[in-house]
């Protein structure tokens, strides 16, 4: 659910449709755990997830987008005008965080980054997806840490700032069955892996 705002996903769908116009793509949105279960159970053919998964027998995970995490601040925030900031500068802020069920991996990455910066974030609200999360940051409910692609939402009320160090990533990962036999699915996987190489 946390990946839908990324332009890469839209381009993948567009290009696959152009190459395989006879294949109907059915798109579904669900929580992290339910998506991996659905691929394993053949309810879905592939899933795009935010963050790496633990090894799941029978499934292959492939990182298609490596994305850095940014600090999201209301445009009116005193720090909003400055350049890159230390996460520690947000230690006393109210935090909006992606719901753990929607993005357990990225949730953990953000919490770990805060811990490493020497604080435990005061979470005032969990939000099930990044676009509404960013929108709530803009309304002044708190600050957030979001993937870089949210930048293109173009919200005037929000500023995205680089985090010093900048080593915290929230990759988008493609998950598919390792022994997939269907050509249509294998084509999609191959195309996604090729597109991954050209950011």
């Amino acid at each position, binding site marked *: *659910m946390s990946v*839908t*705002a*990324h*332009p890469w*996903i*839209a*381009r993948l*769908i*567009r290009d696959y*449709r152009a190459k395989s116009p006879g294949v109907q*793509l*059915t*798109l*579904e*949105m669900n929580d992290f755990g339910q998506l991996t279960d659905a691929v394993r159970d053949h309810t879905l053919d592939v899933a795009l997830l935010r963050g790496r998964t633990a090894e799941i027998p029978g499934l292959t995970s492939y990182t298609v987008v490596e994305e850095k995490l940014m600090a999201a601040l209301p445009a009116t925030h005193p720090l909003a005008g400055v350049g890159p900031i230390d996460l520690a500068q947000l230690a006393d802020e109210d935090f909006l965080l992606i*719901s753990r069920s929607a993005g357990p991996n990225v949730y953990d990455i953000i919490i770990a980054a805060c811990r490493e910066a020497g604080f435990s974030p005061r979470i*005032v*609200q*969990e*939000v*099930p*997806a990044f*676009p*509404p999360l960013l*929108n*709530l940051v*803009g*309304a*002044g*409910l708190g600050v957030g840490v979001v993937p870089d692609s949210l930048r*293109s*939402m*173009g*919200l*005037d009320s929000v500023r995205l700032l680089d985090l010093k160090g900048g080593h915290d990533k929230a990759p988008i990962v493609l998950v598919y069955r390792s022994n997939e036999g269907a050509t249509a699915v294998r084509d999609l996987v191959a195309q996604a892996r090729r597109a991954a190489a050209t950011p």
Partner: protein
Amino acid sequence: MLELKLLRSFVLLAEELHFGRAAERLHIVQPALTQQIQSLERQIGTPLLNRARGRISLTDAGALVLAEARKTLEQAARTEAIGRLAGRGEVGKLEVGFVGSAGVGALMPAVLRDFRRSHPAVELHLVEMAVGPQLAAIAAGTLDVGFVRLPPLSLPPGVTVLPLRPDSLVAALPAGHPLAALDAIPVAALATEPMVLHHRAGAAELRSLIDDLCGRHGFTPQVVQSVPQISLTVRLVAAGLGLSLLPGSIAWLAVEGVIYRPLADADIQYTLALAHRPQDPAPAVRAFVSLAGAAAEA
């Protein structure tokens, strides 16, 4: 079980270490206090006070009981305060549903911000859901309030909708699309365009509005892709997969590559509303509904 009254008397006596002064602070007579302390020592089964040469001091057991008694009294006070706050709707949890377009619109964040400020101890649990499932969940009591769109296909008994802000459908086009040169898009021009629309399952109301609109203009939309979430719809339009019809309130999200235009010959109302149970006695729910109404008028 020890009575809180006895613990309170003991704590005051331990502070004063003087029966007369402690009794005075408790507004009771000294023999009554003596009786209470004896009763406490009897129930615990050990002396809490040394009473040597008219001076009193705490025994080791008394000192330990004092520390625990203070915690017990604090917890009792907390219990009382939380109950009182909950009665006023100032603590607890609220289940809040929203349709995707409300999540990226301007009003919902303002309502959530105002509610957070007035009810900081109430936890808000946000769930993104389509209109129909939200109304069903509110009727079933698993959701308290929901940001939905009007008109709903049906309204379950016991659920009401408070219209918040009028909104209408606009066309979303890839930048550079020939139709983007027009100030407003005639509905008939969409007949030959590939469309990226919401899942019928996820947004039955929106799809039926669009199907009706196109039907009135004599065509069925050519849906090249159904999409479960509004952010992805906007992205697919930006990627050039097709056109879409979206609520005008999200046009302020200036996603690069997407142009929004009003429809030239149709005004399809898609009002943002708050669904709730009008009979809900929970003060937090009532406060949320009235804040939403106030924010809508602001």
